[in-house]
């Protein structure tokens, strides 16, 4: 079954290249409950792919499987066309997949530079490095460059603790970290859920900038206006599987809501032939 889908779906990329990250026939069961039922996934280079679905549709389980936070019972995940297995989030991260979590993404008491390098600290060279002494100046400098290059101008002092930042600025720090270390793609789980209107638009700008740098972004969100603002394609998830992928320029927000709830089926022409 999955091979059939593959021949239909995977070549239809927006720019005629293979997917960066794809999955075929993923299954994850918890006892009798299937969180993911034979689900597929495709993310192409240079795109922002929104993943939408009702609560309990299994989209967060899918994303966890793609970021290594959950090990699927069966199915395959391919990164740049090669089969991969993530035993942990750290394994996915080593392969260049960075995830921005909805909450708890940053350590509020530590400063911005420390947060950006948390778990991946730079050490000094030579003898001090052997003593495991950190190169704080290098980390601050790179943190500064990273924030500047992403246009995060509202953060002025790189040594201020993250707890002194607004919610949007904190999210920006988390996004900047992902963009700095993600070499393949960045996954963002509800990055705008806790933010106000202006902060949301800042984060959306950031998402666009990351995409324009060449890093594809997976955006899990309930925020329809935000999705329609930045997403190139929308992956619709229902009852544990992908029921189709739509182009936001061809459907309306209410259509997408109807696809999510099952009030409406995705028309064959609009979907990218992933639906069965």
């Amino acid at each position: 079954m999955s091979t059939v889908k593959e021949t239909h779906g995977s070549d239809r990329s927006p720019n005629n290249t293979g997917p960066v990250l794809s999955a075929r026939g993923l299954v994850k069961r918890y006892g009798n409950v299937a969180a993911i039922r034979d689900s597929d996934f495709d993310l192409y280079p240079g795109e922002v792919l929104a993943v939408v679905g009702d609560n309990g549709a299994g989209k967060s389980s899918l994303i966890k499987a793609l970021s290594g936070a959950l090990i699927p019972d069966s199915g395959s995940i391919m990164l740049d066309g090669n089969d991969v297995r993530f035993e942990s989030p750290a394994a996915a991260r080593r392969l260049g997949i960075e995830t921005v979590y909805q909450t708890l993404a940053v350590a509020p008491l530590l400063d911005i530079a420390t947060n950006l390098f948390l778990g991946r600290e730079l050490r000094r060279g030579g003898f001090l490095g052997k003593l495991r002494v950190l190169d704080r100046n290098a980390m601050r400098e790179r943190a500064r460059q990273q924030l500047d290059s992403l246009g995060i101008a509202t953060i002025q002092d790189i040594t201020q603790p993250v707890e002194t930042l607004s919610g949007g600025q904190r999210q920006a720090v988390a996004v900047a970290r992902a963009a700095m270390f993600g070499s393949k793609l960045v996954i963002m789980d509800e990055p705008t859920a806790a933010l106000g209107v202006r902060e949301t638009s800042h984060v959306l700008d950031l998402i666009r900038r990351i995409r324009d740098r060449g890093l594809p972004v997976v955006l899990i969100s309930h925020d329809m206006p935000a999705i329609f603002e930045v997403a190139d394609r929308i992956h619709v998830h229902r009852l544990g599987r992908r029921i189709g992928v739509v182009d936001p320029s061809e459907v309306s927000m209410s259509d997408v809501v109807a696809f999510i709830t099952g009030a409406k089926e995705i028309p064959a022409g609009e979907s990218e032939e992933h639906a069965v």
Partner: protein
Amino acid sequence: MTQSKMMPPETRQTDRIRTLFARSPALGPTVALVIVTLFFSVVTDTFFSLDNFSAVINQSVVIGALALGQTLVILTAGIDLANAAIAVFGTILITKLVTQGSPPVVGLTVGVIACGLIALVSGTLVARLKLPPFIVTLGMLAVVTAVTNIYSGGTTWRVPEGLLTWLGRQTYLFGGIPMTYGMGLVVVLYVVVWAVLSKTAWGRHVYAVGGAPEATRLNGINTQRTLISVYVVAGLIYGIAAWLAMGRTPTADPNAYQTGNLDSITAVVIGGTSLFGGRGGVAGTAVGALIVAVLRSGLTQMGIDTNYQNLATGVLVIAAVAFDQIARRRTA
């Protein structure tokens, strides 16, 4: 800080002071230390002298070392109620080993490592089984105290002279300032732990685990290993506290330092380290330990009963925690 340019001068002034205090957490306790020292210097005739200052510092070495280990544990949002009991067990173990014929170096090394291993048990229970540190270390306190009493036979042991009592030896710094080797060792310990906490990734991870355990884990840091290593390092420091204790009084007494856990927690908390984890540091603890020692010594020299001193310590620790909680609520 950068925004203050636009503010009116008087706001800028208070703002600057507030930033100064927020950025150097040891500053508040230092001001408090100076105030209590001045107070006792004025109200008693005996307090203000170099010999007395030296004696006060010397009285604080054991609590100071216990508080250093306690700081590490509290930075991870934990607490160690068994620290003094572990150190006391260390004094008995070392003394008995050496009395029964072990070379002092061997006895001392075994004792310090034993303290580290006891703390390893606490740390493992806290990190792997996710048990509350308060309960784990309360249980360890009872266990270790019982073992100490059984192992010592309930009696005080005489510490053999030599290496074990070496830290109590007195010398004169710059020809005039009286100090013990133990005081020097405690200063070195504080500097080393400070450097490790502020200059290494492990140190940053200790703060991260305490302040935001979930975010730290999601960043790929092995939080369980970090937690366990903190308890072990703290345990080794308690072992060194045992050595310091034998230098202070050359007897290993199973009933010594019964308020050592409270005193060390007091030193940590009034030193500005948050019981909620992730905030504070060893510089504050050093000052906190001195405040406790100055208060105890000053009140004694004023002729105030020990019971009132304990009362004062209790009030102080509660006040410090309340202050921390209020400050935390304001920033959160």
